[in-house]
């Protein structure tokens, strides 16, 4: 078990920064996920931790130990790759025993530990088979056993599930999560799949263009994205244009206006001007009759029935389009296309960004939401 600290780590590829000033700490025993679209630098960061790349700037620590010049084979890590990277010329047993043999562990102990690891991934019965003809799921289990059998201080996983089919992916990810908690190994997990990240992680770092955009608990990242990129990348968001004005320094609140409707809200910074309001589809209220003042008029354009929910495409009076989803309504109560509706953006649950979308000026705080839960 080991903590990992990045101190202003920057890694260049040619002129561009593949990792740009990574500066954060991964705690002992944590399941930490690097999440982002392809090319965001998540794999580069992972490979820098592994020592396959060396950062040009900044320092990397495992615990208190400076790792900059420690070669990979001395870093005491276990690594799982996207394409399994099984040694094709060895049996299942030999694959898993490989790291132990390199550590000069006694024969008897190797036998015990390999079998223990194979049992953990439910492959004990295949120990003497050649791995080449096994399924992707089985190969990835071998790779997992091979990585954990050495009891590494750090487990690195580079998109381990993305070559597997959807059903297997869901089973494997909960297996991995359970294994990690049982063994209590600090784990750094790279994925581009936000659902996977939300499901397995203790904390998530969202990356884009080499920069860490936000680090937080899964539900924080989802509910309170710190900028437009995160809001857009995690889940689905509607972005509505609005304005912020009449900022009151004493109360810290301003008037947020959308299409004639306005609401006074407490901002995190003194911002006036154009704003971008991010609203999750499930947070939008849709009704046929006007409920209160803050609702906006619109028209249903599309109706998509998705089983457990219905998704409506709605065009507001000024032409902006929204997606709203409503949970399992009875079919006869479903709205139909061309119907006039009233939309409640529920601004208090939204996240409001400045004009550029880079910084949030309003986020419903966690305390508010938990307080809301209690009263509900």
């Amino acid at each position, binding site marked *: 078990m080991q903590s990992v600290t990045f101190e202003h780590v920057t890694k260049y590829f040619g002129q561009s920064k593949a990792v740009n000033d990574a500066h954060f700490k991964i705690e002992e025993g944590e399941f930490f996920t690097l999440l982002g679209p392809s090319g965001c630098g998540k794999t580069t960061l992972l490979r820098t931790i592994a020592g396959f790349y060396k950062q040009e700037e900044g320092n990397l620590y495992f615990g208190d130990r400076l790792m900059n010049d420690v070669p990979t084979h001395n870093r005491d890590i276990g690594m799982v790759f996207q394409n399994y*990277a099984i040694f094709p010329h060895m049996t299942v047993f030999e694959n898993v025993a490989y790291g132990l043999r390199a550590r000069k562990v006694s024969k008897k102990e190797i036998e015990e530990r390999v079998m223990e690891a194979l049992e953990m991934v439910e492959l004990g019965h295949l120990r003497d088979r050649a791995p080449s003809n096994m399924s992707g799921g089985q190969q990835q289990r071998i790779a997992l056993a091979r990585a954990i059998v050495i009891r590494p201080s750090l487990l690195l996983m580079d998109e381990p599930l993305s070559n597997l089919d959807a059903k297997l992916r869901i089973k494997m990810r909960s297996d991995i999560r359970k294994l990690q908690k049982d063994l209590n190994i600090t784990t750094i997990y790279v994925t581009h799949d936000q659902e996977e990240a939300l499901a397995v992680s203790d904390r998530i770092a969202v990356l884009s263009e080499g920069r860490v955009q936000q680090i937080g608990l899964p539900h924080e990242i989802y509910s309170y994205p710190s900028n437009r990129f995160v809001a857009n990348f995690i889940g689905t968001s509607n972005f509505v244009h609005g304005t912020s004005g009449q900022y009151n320094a004493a109360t810290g609140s301003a008037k947020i206006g959308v299409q004639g409707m306005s609401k006074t809200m407490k901002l995190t910074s003194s911002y006036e001007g154009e704003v971008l309001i991010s609203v999750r589809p499930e947070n939008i209220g849709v009704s046929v009759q006007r409920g209160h003042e803050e609702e906006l008029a619109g028209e249903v354009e599309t109706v998509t029935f998705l089983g457990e929910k219905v998704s409506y495409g709605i065009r507001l009076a000024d032409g902006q389009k929204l997606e709203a989803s409503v949970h399992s309504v009875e079919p006869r109560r479903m709205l139909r296309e061309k119907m006039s509706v009233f939309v409640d953006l529920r601004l208090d649950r939204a996240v409001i960004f400045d004009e550029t979308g880079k910084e949030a000026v309003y986020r419903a705080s966690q305390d508010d939401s938990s307080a809301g839960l209690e009263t509900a």
Partner: protein
Amino acid sequence: MQAKTIQAPVWKRLSLQVWDFWGWVTLLVYVFLALFIVYPLFSLMATSFYDENGVFSFQNYIDFATLKYFRNALWHSFAVSGLATFFAILIGVPMAYVTTRYNVRFKGLMHIMIIMSLVSPPFIGAYSWILMLGNNGFITNFLRDIGIHIKSIYGMHGIVFVFTLQLYPHIYLYVSGALKTIDTSLEEAAESLGMSAWKRLRTVTLPLIFPTLSAGALMVFMASFADFGTPMLIGQGYKTLPILAYEQFISEMGGNAAMASTLSVVLILCTTMILFAQRYIVSRKNYAMSGMRTPKVKQLRPLPKFLLTLGALAVVSVSIIPQATVIVTSFIKKKGPVFHKGFSLDSYREILFRVPKAIINTYTYSILSIVIMVVVGMLVAYILVRRKSKLTAAMDSILMLPYVMPGTVLGISLIIAFNKPPIVLTGTWIILVIAYIVRKIPYTIRSSTAILHQLDRNVEEASISLGVPPAKTFFKTTARLMVPGVASGAILSWVTTINELSSTIVLYFGATATISVTIYSEVFTSNYGTGAALASILSLTTLVSLLIAYFVSGRKEMNV
């Protein structure tokens, strides 16, 4: 914001921490290349600029430009190489087309025989055609007995004839590879547009395979341009550049190393120019093909099928005749150098008694060379593929140099470089092994890089992450996985090493003579029986090696 300095400072990059195993390998390979390719090449060039009194001058080049004797040799070289390439294309392309597109019979057999005729010792073709069509050849004699006098094989036409038959397999192999993977929908598109079969071939198929064809043609041209044995044996008065370089270097009247160097430099310039010309042409005419739909083999009616099979077999048979002749000749009974009726093992008895050292030398030098070539070749391939940088790109270019250095030239350059202190190697077996490695390692490197490109890099990273250092990881995982791929190139390195003549003839002396130079001297002293016996040993070794490779690699195709 301004981009900061990207590279770490020089002292940091050269510090000991970055000197892992591969850093050292890179350094050692560079030392080897500098010592045995770059340094000899520079010595060669330097020598070419001094006259016999050791004074700097351009006299040698002026001589070359003004004396007809030298200019003729250059012209001869271009003439025989050009004609041989032309005829090789004329034979190789139809052979490839017929065997890939029609259901002719005996394809497998023909394929093996064509490869055999390619990898046979380069001068054995010349030698056995002398046995058949020389002044005292048995076909010549037979025809003379029935009253027909034919022109003997000696001379320019003989050289072109032998080159063509020996080297058309390059064209055949390259073109049949291309024809098998061509995207046939392009041909079908042409057909649907109303093109006749012949016009379609000319306007669609041939242009599409042009890059491959030109690569094959380059191989033929380079091989015939650099070849020493064939023109030496049957050229007689018709001298090409490699012969002239050799004669200038090892002359009974005391060699003229400077002139030999000058000729060598000219040779290198010519081959380099041709290499770049081919690359330039191809770079402008390269088509990427998806090759999703590969062509079907056309089923012929019995008569055309029979005729095409017969024609193809005839070509293959003629090109395999030299091997057969040599083997038969080696068993003919003889008294001294004179042949008698009947068969015996006299020739074999004689070589075992007279030149056992040559046989031992060939195998010891070749085995030593191939072991080094495989080990070094795999390491170099690893650096080239996995440690890509400007440094390794430069290494790749230097490794290309032996391609443009004819064997004779390489031999001469090594002698000039190592016949004086600080390093004296002339007259030792070491210099032969070095020459073999430098000349033949490209085959091994090429097949090693090919297999390495297919291997998943993560496998070795997995090993390193599990605590096994990079060097050990290479030998425990990567190297083992490379073996099947490396084998196909290593076998070529091996086969061409045991048959090597053109640099050996410059570098050997009495005690380090190999089979190939012994054959050469036996033929020159008209000991055809012993020469044939030695050649048969080489042919047999070649055949066995190829068959082993064929079965070990488990591939249906031998790619040369």
